[in-house]
């Protein structure tokens, strides 16, 4: 069972209180009606599926209820950091020396 730091509660808590909520930093377009089919497909379906550092959303559903973002390494399953919704993507390379979104061996 993972331990996850909720940036709203300021506590590191058991995974059972949290729910995964998909890839982070995929903003809903301001005016969906103006989106081309290709743009809408990109928003609706395309996800990065990285082997490495993945930016993703979690919800502290059985806690404070807030959605927040996390950087998690999909190979080690280790959280590098979590941060509040709306905050910019942190610089993981500066934090840890691991390049974000880069496949193993390509570093």
């Amino acid at each position, binding site marked *: 069972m993972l331990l996850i730091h909720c940036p709203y509660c300021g506590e590191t808590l*058991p995974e059972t209180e949290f729910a995964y909520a998909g890839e982070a930093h995929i903003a809903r377009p301001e005016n969906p009606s103006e989106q081309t089919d290709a743009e809408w497909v990109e928003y609706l379906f395309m996800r990065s599926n990285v082997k490495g550092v993945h930016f993703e959303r979690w919800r502290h559903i059985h*806690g*404070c209820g807030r959605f927040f973002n996390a950087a998690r390494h999909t190979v080690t399953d280790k959280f590098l950091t979590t941060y509040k919704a709306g905050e910019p993507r942190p610089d993981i390379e500066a934090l840890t020396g691991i390049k974000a979104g880069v496949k193993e061996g390509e570093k």
Partner: protein
Amino acid sequence: MTFDKKTAGGVTIEELPAEARFSLRVRDGERAAVAGALGLELTDTVGVMTSGSGRKALCLGPDEWVLSGAPGDAAAITAACAGVYDAAPHSLVEISEREIFIRASGPAVEALMATGVARDLSRIGPGQGARTVFDGTPVVLVREKTDSFRLNVWRSFAPHLLGHLFHVQKELASGL
């Protein structure tokens, strides 16, 4: 009452009486106005409970409190909040009936709680609480005293939770 009080294995499990309860949601800018109307402080530290004017407010999330008062206090709470709504918009929704209130207390209460709560209970001091999960059931738990916990559980989940608590009570009574 939906179940009888029972003491065994170093824990007492009992139902607590009804109270007026509300879910209160308000943003930072309007919090002070609502707190003033209610006559208590509203902390934004998740897990901390404050009290005043015979009312209690447990902060469950950055903009969420569960507000409780005496059973007859519901109308006064509603009126107090309505009075500041236009100036300080917020959400007040009565949930007095949503939950059953269970108290588990006694020297073995931590062992009982540790059969269902994955959190480190030592980090929840007297007067603090949290929304969490008890053996798969969503609950709001409050540590009333060192050896006394209160579990607020949605009505329909209560039989399941109580089934667990009474089962573990027998386990604790076995001494093993």
